[in-house]
């Protein structure tokens, strides 16, 4: 011990210089400033599963946009001389019972499924936020009434309402979206209400108020950013369940009508012809499973990255 100490002291005193003690730099934060979003993005980038999912999702989205146009066929063009062709150099994924090109139909269907799911999720969020926010900000009797309505809605199995609504309206993309939104917004409304209630009593809101921030600044600067994370994460979980619901409805014959394609319609067609033409079922199944896996993994990744309470 003694020896070591002596060695350490062997630094000549002239190598030191006095820099002084400035009060203002003592408390300075040395690390570069990261906003919550930058921090979240850094964390997300470290999550391999989420990044691969993001990449695969982008690929699927790009394919669903350009896919139908890369060959000469359209999704509704029939050719009775070329029915049930196995995948070949001309029809990359084969043809179905009407001789329609499966490559074109697959990406057209993916696009429609994605469109329905994303639009339904966005509308859910719009209605959910409005309802949840009004309920939370008004509080008291208004909140009480609005929550009773939600309790009743939650008591009814979603799918049954969706089925009844679709029976009532003309089948089509809009009908499916409306039916899904009518039942789907409830979750979001509950989530937003809960979050705003929690934030209302949070200490940093109190601190902001004490520092003289006005209502607008508190809502835009503090409450919204802290709710947005939850909203985006929930949306990421809503999209795969909307894709599932659409496929489910089309599968039991309540979804889109021929010749329109969606993943559910394609899987249903594939299922009918599965015994002898398995490829008709295989490709749409692969796409729907990849979509669901990727959205779920990405949602998990986003939650881990942006929701501080989920961090270990």
């Amino acid at each position: 011990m003694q020896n070591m100490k002596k060695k350490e002291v062997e630094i000549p005193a002239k190598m030191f210089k006095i820099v002084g003690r400035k009060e203002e730099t003592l408390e300075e934060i040395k690390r570069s400033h990261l906003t919550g979003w930058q921090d979240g993005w850094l964390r997300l980038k470290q999550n391999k599963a989420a990044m691969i999912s993001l990449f695969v999702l982008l690929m699927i989205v790009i394919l669903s946009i350009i896919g139908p146009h890369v060959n000469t066929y359209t999704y509704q063009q029939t050719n009775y001389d070329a029915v049930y062709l196995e995948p070949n150099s001309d029809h990359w994924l084969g043809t179905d019972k009407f001789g329609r090109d499966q490559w074109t139909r697959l990406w057209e269907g993916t696009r429609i499924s994605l469109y329905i799911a994303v639009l339904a999720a966005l509308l859910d969020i719009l209605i959910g936020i409005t309802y949840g926010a009004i309920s939370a900000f008004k509080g008291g009797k208004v909140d009480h009434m609005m929550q009773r309505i939600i309790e009743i809605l939650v008591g009814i199995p979603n799918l049954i309402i969706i089925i009844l609504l679709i029976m009532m309206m003309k089948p089509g993309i809009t009908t499916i979206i409306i039916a899904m939104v009518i039942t789907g917004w409830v979750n979001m409304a509950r989530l937003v209400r809960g979050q705003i209630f929690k934030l209302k009593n949070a200490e940093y809101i109190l601190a902001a108020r004490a520092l003289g921030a006005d209502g607008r600044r508190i809502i835009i600067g503090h409450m919204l950013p802290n709710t947005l994370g939850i909203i985006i994460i929930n949306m990421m979980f809503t999209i795969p369940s909307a894709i599932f619901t659409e496929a489910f409805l089309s599968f039991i014959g309540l979804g889109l009508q021929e010749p329109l394609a969606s993943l559910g319609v394609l899987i249903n067609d594939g299922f009918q012809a599965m015994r002898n033409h398995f490829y008709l079922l295989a490709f749409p199944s692969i796409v729907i499973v990849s979509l669901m896996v990727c959205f779920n993994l990405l949602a998990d990744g986003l939650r881990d990255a942006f929701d501080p309470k989920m961090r270990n």
Partner: protein
Amino acid sequence: MKRFIFLRLVNIIITLFIIATVTFFLMKLLPGSPFDEERLSKLSDEARLEFLAKYGLDQPVYVQYAKYIGSLIKGDLGISYYYKGQTVNALIKDRIGPSMLLGIQAVILGLSVGIILGIIAAYRHNTIWDYFTMLVAVLGVSIPNFVLAAILQFYVGLQWGLFPVAYWEGYQHTFLPTISLGVTVIAIIARFTRNEMLEVLQQDYILTAQSKGISECAVLIKHAIRNALIPVITILGPVFVSLLTGSLVIENIFSIPGIGSLFVDSIKMNDYTTIMGLTLFYSAFFILTILIVDLLYGIIDPRIRIHGRE
């Protein structure tokens, strides 16, 4: 507690009444008729009136509504339009067996496999077991059950010939549908159990138990698993919903005479009374399940007595 149950029951009755009313008027608004319009128009006026009177369709809507609600209170769901001369009650009674059997089997499969996977995954955190469980959990919620059912039917049933692919003629016929329904349950439960278990294993009382020198096995069983499994009850609600949804399509794929396939068939046949009856039946079942889950949770976990909850 009693007050809570009473309030919940009142809430349930109101909910069911609203569902009954909404479905009734929705059915009246629906385009199309359950009857063959052409044959109906060929009948003489007298015969047609008699026919409509048999189903109570000759009266104004509000009378029909009052009658429907009246018979509902007595538990009578009406006569099916499509299945000649059968009451909806009898139809449900005939068909409920297979659906219940499948549902119960899927829950047992899902709970047992899911809990075991979840516990192993948490105990061997960040090992191959953990990754395997997470893979199962992600795939299980991501593969739509009808896609899984179709693929099982193709490979296990048609290609390998291990199990029958359709109909309801013996216990073997329940295998594939049960697996198709159960995989989602396995996924939900495994993931949830893993997370709960991970949290419990970090608690101080686990450290205390370990430092007392209790064997690892005893710590795991007596201290960790017990506490980790309590919250699993809370996700039984979503599990039942997924089973209910699943039954609609799985029963159709495997041609099983259950209430799920009855519902889908009655939609295709415009059989309004059956649709209304099943909607109410499903809703009542769903609401009661959630009530039971809530009550169970309060009983099992003393920290969460009813009044303590928001």
